[in-house]
């Protein structure tokens, strides 16, 4: 093995991304340090790390979001570097700065680059100056007159967005001039409440765009490369659910155009490490949305179609190595799809589902990758993000990848909690998805996705239920005694029945 980039690295995260980073460390010969909150004491990322340090109670603000504790844990274990993963402190410039000031290496871009991309209006201006196309819009507006003037330039319908924002807070669609002032007041007050910053700007509203993003990698010697696109249009409430690479609508010429623009965007903020430039794409045109200054959840699809280990590259570059390779003109190799497996009940409005995972069998076989932060016996709590695992497949082409994903989803078996598995399976069979007809409204446009099970499936289930019922009634030891330890199942069924229609409400979507 070559000399490792660092002897020891602390992973300031939990769940599947912590496991992912630890895997990269092991392959690079780096000792990994896990941190954990009280309920995560025996979580998979702790079991897989070489060292581990407790950092406090379940509440994230007192554990995974407490930068002081993370830096202290790195010092205590003599770790030289900190990998922030995604979420938590990954895009917090103050944390990145504090890590550097403590004499440690932050695996990510310079704090100035994080800050520049974190402020949406500032990032827009920077991008415009760098020649990156942005959605036509305004700077932050001060009052009604200012907004009305900007609105006349942009045209309707338009979107109000919080300058400090994200996640849908402070966002409003305005379809006509007389709606503008009341919408502005509400958006400003929402933005003030959510971010402590009432600044709002205007943007043209795009009808049914796609979300397409470009992965970039930059070293400390001025080399910036792109690794092609990911299409992430299938989202719910701005949370991505399914991602793929390549996009069904991006050809080689468009990929090169978008890639060049993404590289310019990264250069404009002095970027280093792995990053993602997100675009909205509609009618053949793409517009800068934002840059994520971290490794992303969906990075595995790019890894599968390029063969590049993005997390290892992040670590190597942060250690001061030059990239030392060029993108292969043969990329993308085949087609990759990722489904995010969340602890949510897709038939019940994606309500969080928590509880102990009693059984877990992950799919395997040709072209299948399972990145997970769960195991049998693991208690899924309600303190953290509901993302449990990512099922990623690689095929020779899109159709093979879809068939492979469907097969893998059928193999996946998780008992004890409800997951989004059935949602993904429904998408893999839906004609618009099969044809690559996607937009960020896909989930809302397909309310029938979670239709009831087909009759043959229902018949098989009914036959099984009757046979099991007879078996139960004939057996001296009643099955119900064994299920006493599984309250979740009963309560969910209780809720579904409480759905007040009739006894037939089982498994039905309202």
């Amino acid at each position, binding site marked *: 093995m070559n000399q490792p980039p660092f002897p020891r690295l602390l992973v300031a995260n939990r769940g599947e991304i912590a496991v992912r980073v630890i895997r990269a460390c092991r392959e690079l010969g780096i000792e990994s340090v896990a941190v954990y909150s009280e309920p995560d004491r025996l979580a998979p990322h702790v079991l897989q790390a070489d060292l581990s340090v407790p950092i406090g109670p379940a509440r994230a603000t007192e554990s995974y979001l407490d930068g002081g504790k993370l830096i202290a844990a790195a010092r205590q274990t003599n770790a030289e570097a900190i990998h922030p993963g995604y979420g938590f402190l990954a895009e917090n410039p103050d944390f990145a700065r504090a890590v550097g000031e403590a004499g440690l290496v932050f695996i990510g871009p310079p704090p100035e680059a994080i800050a520049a991309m974190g402020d949406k209006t500032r990032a827009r201006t920077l991008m415009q100056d760098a020649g990156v196309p942005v959605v036509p819009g305004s700077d932050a507006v001060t009052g009604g007159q200012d907004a009305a003037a900007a609105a006349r330039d942009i045209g309707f319908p338009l979107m109000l967005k919080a300058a400090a924002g994200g996640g849908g807070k402070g966002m409003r669609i305005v379809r006509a001039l007389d709606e503008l002032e009341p919408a502005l007041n509400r958006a400003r007050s929402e933005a003030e409440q959510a971010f402590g910053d009432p600044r709002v700007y205007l943007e043209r509203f795009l009808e049914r765009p796609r979300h397409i993003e470009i992965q970039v990698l930059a070293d400390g010697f001025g080399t910036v490369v792109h690794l092609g696109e990911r299409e992430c249009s299938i989202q719910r409430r701005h949370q991505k659910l399914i991602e793929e690479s390549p996009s069904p609508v991006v050809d080689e010429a468009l990929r090169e155009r978008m890639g060049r623009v993404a590289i310019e965007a990264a250069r404009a903020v002095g970027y280093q490490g792995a990053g993602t430039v997100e675009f909205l794409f509609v009618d053949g045109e793409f517009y800068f949305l934002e840059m994520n200054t971290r490794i992303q959840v969906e990075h595995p699809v790019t890894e599968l179609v390029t063969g590049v280990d993005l997390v290892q590259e992040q670590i190597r570059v942060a250690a001061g190595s030059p990239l030392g390779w060029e993108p292969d003109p043969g990329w993308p190799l085949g087609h990759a799809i990722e489904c995010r497996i969340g602890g949510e009940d897709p038939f019940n409005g994606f309500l969080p589902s928590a509880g102990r995972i009693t059984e877990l069998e992950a799919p395997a076989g040709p072209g299948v990758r399972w990145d997970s932060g769960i195991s049998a016996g693991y208690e899924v709590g309600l303190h953290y993000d509901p993302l449990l695992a990512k099922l990623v497949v690689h095929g020779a082409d899109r159709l093979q990848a879809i068939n492979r994903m469907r097969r893998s989803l059928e193999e*996946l078996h998780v008992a004890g909690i409800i997951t989004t598995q059935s949602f993904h399976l429904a998408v893999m069979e839906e004609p618009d998805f099969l044809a690559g007809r996607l937009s960020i409204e896909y989930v809302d446009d397909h309310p029938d996705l979670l239709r009831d099970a087909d009759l043959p499936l229902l018949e098989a*289930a009914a036959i099984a239920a009757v046979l099991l*019922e007879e078996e139960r009634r004939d057996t001296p030891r009643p099955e119900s005694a064994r299920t006493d330890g599984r309250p979740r*199942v009963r*309560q969910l069924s209780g809720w579904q*029945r409480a759905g*007040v229609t009739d006894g*037939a409400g089982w498994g*039905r979507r*309202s």
Partner: protein
Amino acid sequence: MKYYVTGAGETLLVETTETGVRIADRELDAHIDTVAGSTRRHLRIGERGIPLAARRADDGWVMEIGGRVVGLAIEDERTHAIRELAPGLGAGAPREVRAPMAGLVLRLEVSEGQHVDSGTALIVIEAMKMENELRAQGPGTVASIAAKEGTTVNPGDLLLTFATEEG
């Protein structure tokens, strides 16, 4: 024995026979085995194997089959007949809404005695940093409310009771 199996909006009549089941006028050779120490089952219909997982619920079974979760209520012929004879006890009886997860009760959207339609928001519970709206799955009248705003609830806690519409 005959059973009425209800799920996904359908009620199927399944009768057990010496060698399997009768369903929709078809005689099927059917057997089921359990994979030891798990909820995994293997249903055989003739030579065809159908893998599934099943766990017992209050009045039926929750099946994981073909990547889907299907809840099935099951009644034998006698129970079914008794219930059919006394419809008043079924549809009009108060029904309970229980917390599907642990969380904080943020808002009560309804009050006692209020009539609600299918889809009306009842209660908002915060969990996993998300606001989760529990909605009525059918029309009804709120009979009583047990949940209090600002309190935490555990899975299975009673939130409110309902009187269902007739018909």
